[in-house]
């Protein structure tokens, strides 16, 4: 599917939800536990070996996609078969 910043997607068979922060230009398949994510999360669940955590951002190695987990659940997240990894946030001193 063609991703767009702002859209929310749900995983099937688990509680995982994500929001797209940055989207690749071309169509991709986003999966959670090996099963495609959809707007309503309907359908059969996938594997539950991984974990996706609320508040963490997930991205690919090339930096074309960034997802924010808005509800924790099973995982892992992948795009076109490439596992997405947690974007390391640099701890910054609070400034306002």
């Amino acid at each position: 599917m063609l991703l767009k910043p702002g859209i929310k997607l749900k995983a099937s068979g688990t509680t995982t939800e994500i929001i797209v922060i940055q989207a690749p230009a071309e169509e991709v398949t986003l999966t959670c536990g090996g099963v495609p994510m959809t707007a309503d999360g309907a359908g059969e669940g996938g594997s539950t070996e991984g974990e996706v955590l609320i508040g963490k951002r997930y991205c690919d190695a090339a930096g074309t996609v960034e997802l924010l987990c808005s509800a924790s659940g099973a995982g892992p997240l992948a795009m076109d078969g490439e596992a997405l990894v947690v974007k390391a946030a640099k701890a910054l001193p609070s400034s306002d």
Partner: protein
Amino acid sequence: MNIVTLLDMVSSVDPDRVILGDRHEGVTLGRLRDLADRAAGVLSDHPGRPLLFSGTATEAFPIALFGAAVAGRAFAPVSYRLAAGPYAELVTDQLPTTLIAEPTSSDQLREGPELSMATPAGFVAAVRAAAPSGAEPEQDPEAPAVLLHTSGTTGKPKVAVLRHRHLTSYVLNGTEMLGAGPDEAALVSVPPYHIAGVAGLLTGMYSGRRIVQLPNFTAEDWVATAAAQEITHAMVVPTMLARIVEVLEQTGETLPTLRHLSYGGGRMPRPVIERALGLLPHVGFVNAYGLTETTSSIAVLGPEEHRAAVSSDDPAVRARLESVGRPLPSVEIVCRDALGEPVPPGEPGELWVRGDQVSGEYAATSQLDDDGWFRTKDAGRIDDDGYVFVEGRLDDVIVRGGENLSPGEIENALLQHPAVTDAVVYGQPDEMWGEIVVAAIVTAPGSDPTPEELQAWVASLLRSSRVPARIRFLTEVPRNDLGKVLRRVLRADSEAAAPSR
């Protein structure tokens, strides 16, 4: 995504955490999300139109901000210190709209089909009494979230447009969700119409750090509230810190729970920060530089960098106390000349900034270039180690005989003189030099330095081109309500007046 999604996330994980007000009686994350939902129903009167808010920093502020976000309306904070005429004009420009304001601000305005009005307290009461709206917030990241008037110290204020993506990028790039410990509390004393007031609310909420609001700043109240509420974090503008330092010196209060004090919104006089560092050795200081148009901070000088600067024998490292630190990892800052060409490290120029949080956009006009860069109109330089020094507004740089002079450098020299309590330096048109350096100073009670004495003092610290040709003695420096110096006022009466003394 929508800024209210950030509240959805933290309130789903830790709904019972107190986020606003007193530790025991304050508003929890879950309650704040519930109030935002009810507020969306109350705010259904002018769909899609900005919500004007000119209350002080009370609980009405976050309820209106998040309520507007749920309702799909932009939140437009307006200064309650504007004069009646400009205030009425500003509101009229936004019709049809809803205005939340104290009656003293809005007494020239009348309610009608195009203008709904409520007091902050009346709005909160209506929200508490309202039924849940069940509204589903729009997730369009391009939708305007906050419309902020820039302070306009050098010209007419402009309306900066901050979209949901600018604000959420700022929060996500710099804040760990619920990363604050349960004992942490932030004292917010900047008003809702300042970018730090909006940004502080969002980052405080997302980090789960309890927010204590001080609606009308006085240094005495700030110190008393910080002590009573066991405040751990705070942000102040430089004039506030100068007053706080005085109160700490008078009362002997040591603020033992305070860990973290950030400052920004103007140049910090070096004597003030050095006194503050001495009075509060247990506190980590953070200097933050940012603009309304950049969604708050884009560079910070952290606590360790402050300590290293103060204790260093290396003049270059010590001078970092006057820098705003280095760019945030998610932001690029470069220094360019008037033609837009990069200048070598250490050379003066204009600061340009680029990043996801950078709006650079005023009502209906983007000021970003094709590569996403925003010209800050701030003069500055970036040293070999990447430390950014901000010298003030580009319009304030003095061009004397072809040489660019930074008012801040000369002001710092004057402030080191024991008889000088405040100093502003600006350029005055001159036939021979183009501009000459004028210093307007306030002296300590009982002291009576001569202009020649002050000129000799500057000459002992800086190159001769920086020595003020003229010294004016003032009883007070004209500033706006957030402490920014109104140089245009000084320039205007400088041209009218004959040289003093």
